[in-house]
């Protein structure tokens, strides 16, 4: 199943850990909040994506099946 990364913008507190762990897909905006590359997470990055999700201090980052994601 194809997986996408999503961030809950209310709980995200711009710690930036995700961008450190997954620079291939996550960059930071000028205010320190993550900008996630569009599209599904490539298979070879799934384990890195999982690590970033687990490391998020506010549990704002999630890996979800593409079907459930918004627009």
């Amino acid at each position: 199943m194809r997986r996408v990364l999503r961030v809950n913008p209310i709980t995200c507190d711009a710690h930036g850990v995700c961008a450190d762990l997954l620079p291939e897909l996550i960059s930071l905006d000028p205010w320190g909040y993550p900008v996630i590359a569009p599209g599904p997470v490539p298979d070879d990055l799934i384990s890195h994506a999982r690590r970033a999700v687990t490391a998020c201090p506010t549990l704002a980052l999630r890996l979800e099946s593409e079907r459930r994601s918004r627009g």
Partner: protein
Amino acid sequence: MERYGTLALGRGAGPRLMASVEQAGLTGRGGAGFPAGRKMRAVAGGARGRAGPAVVVGNGVESEPASGKDAMLLSQSPHLVLDGIAAAAAAVGATEAYLCVDGGRPQRARRLSAAIAERVTAGIGEVPVELVTYPSRYVASEESALVNFLNGGSAIPGYVPPRPFERGVGGRPTLVNNVETLAHIALIARYGPEWFGSVGTPEAPGSALLTISGAVRRPGVYEVALGTRLGDLVALAGGAAEPPQAILAGGYFGGWLPWPGTADVPASGPGLRAAGGALGAGVLVVLPESACGIAETARVFRYLAGQSAGQCGPCQYGLPDISRALDHIAWRGGDERADAWMRDLLPLIPGRGACRFPDGAVGLVASALRVFGADLEHHLRHGPCPRVARAPVLPVPAGGERPATRSREPR
């Protein structure tokens, strides 16, 4: 109530009404323009589950500063709105209902309470309606913010899903409709979908309440057939009071359209979207040649940036940064760096908040850059134009400062 008699909402009326609203093709009049029948169907579907009976919320807060249609409707036809709440409640099987209105207008709230009491006295036997006075802030009347507030929380948007139609007030499936949408539902219940579609166009059936203001001779609220040409609407509002240069379509979530180039554009959701504006909550503001579109946009955007609930970083920090750059360009002429910085930041905002507020706000600026591109160029090269000194055309409420939220230093 004496004038029109009560709505007949007997057994079996609910499913019939839902089908009528779907057939009529009514879309929400609060701004998003979502099909009203589909929303009802989603709420009714959720209410069949274990979540309990549905709840109906009438949204009459009208936080759009240039809009006056909901206030007019609630003042002049309160029973039409209450009929709509009763009809919508019957359609989705709701057992309670709320009507949310601006807490800053106590007199209007008292009259609405009296109208609700009249119906209770008359013993119509419809769903009980509780009037709720509500803080008037821009993002406060977003659907999930209304639901948060009714659940005892702050009037700030939540991170959806679940959407209110799945889990809203008291965890129950909740139908949130703008009061004008409810009035149309009442009329469809009374006269049927064919009557509703006898005006308007096939892709935008029915009529809508529009608030037309700015450089027109007779500003006010007008009920018009959807699809009416913008040029005819300006004529309806008494014609232009001064030569226009642009029209703001859709309010502060909409977009600027150049004038007179868009006089033939039909006033409907699809028509205005195709032209770069929006129908939104039905706001049209005619901008005269004597005003500076950059300064008008900067003033409104500063207000909007202050209206952020401060929950999501890109909105909380991004909008003020864009506002500072735009202010600089508008009143001090700015420089190429301010312009480039602003253009770098604008695409970073959409789709990154819990609600659509930041998307709408930056959409307004993007439309200003398209329509007032030559003016922007002038500001950058020669400093602010003399027109910035003109009295503001677009209304900006005072005291729009941001509420206290999480405090943290911007990075």
